[in-house]
């Protein structure tokens, strides 16, 4: 019994000593060199891997930032706070505004008329490409929710009106929906912005044509342009555009818009 224990002890002590020694030694020789900055930056990123920054996931962006190949404010999802944090780590100035995505279409199922009986693949891009869209309005929302599918932040859902609904609390302003929508219906708007906005993208200047296709759209009556006391609204390429430098959010345009497609941004977000 005792001999066995002794032999065991001798053997194991020798083995363990050698191993422990060797391990410590090896760790010293083959120290892994990796820029610790990368990990630091990575830790400051939200980790949604949404690709909004234009790099392959958060890791890719972290590496790019750490090696100074990318500015610190590219993470749209993280917004200004992340940009600041990242900037602090790599030691540069950050300038980023928190954005949210606003849908510029009010053509609900009832209001915007269907063009025919669309029977192709149920995606907005498919409908647009093969049938020029499913609605009489060539600019309106197709309602198949391509945007909903790409939103990584669960901020979009398809409302029962057939239009996507943005949850402004969750929207990170990453812009995926804006890029995906074949009708280019989303506007990325700074969270802090106040003022009015038209929620219609129909650029057909012919009033009759608009009325025939959508009961909610902008009919080019230009009431908003006329009524604005600050004269800050102008028709650009068929739709009214607000100059936010001048807009005071007085609400006159909203009041006068016959189809109620002019809104104040605050009420959109509510």
């Amino acid at each position: 019994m005792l001999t066995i224990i002794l032999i065991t002890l001798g053997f194991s002590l020798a083995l363990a000593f050698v191993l422990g020694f060797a391990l410590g030694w090896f760790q010293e020789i083959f120290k892994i060199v990796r820029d610790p900055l990368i990990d630091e930056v990575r830790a400051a990123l939200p980790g949604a891997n949404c690709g909004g920054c234009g790099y392959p996931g958060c890791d890719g962006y972290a590496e790019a930032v750490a090696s100074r190949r990318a500015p610190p404010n590219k993470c749209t999802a993280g917004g200004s706070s992340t940009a600041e944090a990242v900037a602090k780590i790599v030691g540069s100035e950050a300038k980023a505004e928190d954005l949210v995505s606003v849908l510029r279409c009010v053509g609900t199922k009832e209001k915007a008329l269907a063009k025919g009986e669309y029977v192709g693949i149920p995606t907005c891009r498919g409908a647009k490409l093969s049938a020029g869209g499913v609605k009489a309005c060539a600019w309106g929302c197709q309602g198949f929710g391509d945007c909903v599918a790409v939103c990584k932040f669960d901020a979009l859902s398809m409302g029962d009106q057939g239009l996507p609904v943005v949850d402004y609390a969750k929207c990170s302003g990453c812009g995926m929906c804006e890029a995906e929508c074949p009708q280019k219906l989303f506007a990325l708007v700074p969270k802090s912005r106040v003022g009015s906005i038209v929620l219609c993208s129909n650029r057909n200047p012919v009033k009759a044509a608009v009325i025939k296709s959508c009961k909610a759209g902008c009919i080019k009556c230009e009431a908003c342009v006329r009524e604005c006391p600050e004269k800050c609204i102008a028709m650009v390429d068929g739709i009214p555009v607000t100059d936010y430098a001048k807009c005071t959010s007085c609400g006159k345009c909203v009041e006068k818009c016959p189809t109620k497609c002019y809104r104040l941004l605050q009420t959109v977000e509510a």
Partner: protein
Amino acid sequence: MKRLWNIFKQGIIFENPLLMLMIGLCSALAVTTSVSNAVGMGVAMTFVMLCSEIMISAFRKVIPNSVRIPIFIVIIAAFTTIIDYVMQAYFPELSKSMGVFIPLIVVNCIIMGRVEAFAYKQKVPDAIVDSLGMGLGYTWVMVGIAALRELLGNGTLAGTQVMPASFQPILFFTMSPGGFLVFALFISFNIWLKGRMAKAQAAKAGAAQEDAA
């Protein structure tokens, strides 16, 4: 006390090693052809986990970070060897039918995982409770799988005939394809359960928020 109970609960359901964390799968499939094997394996695992967690938790202050892995291995291997020999000596049948899987406890990801993630950082009582919870969590799943497999594949439960004599055992379930299939169904059941629980929790949280408002 509540804290310990919570730790215990984690292992049994919420962080059940087999179902939720999906580690240590090999033994779970290999020895679940009969309930007695499953119990044996569960006990052996729990024993090794308990002893190792106690040791490591107790000595966590003196184990240097850079050689902690070899030390963990030494400790786990020692207890594995002990249970191996004990089973060979006193439960020879069981030991034989579990074959190489008893020695393989040493590489079972569950133990290494718990030791590294829990015992090395927590106090001894916590470690004890954690290992018991994890062990029990591991065991009940094993027994569940084994019961189903043994019942369908052999018509018995823990060796006693429970199905009527006219029942024709479906040998598929005692063989490896059957094991994989039953395990798959178990996991999917659990994913469903997890979803249900998460939903319930979310609903609760929502309700609480509304109350507050």
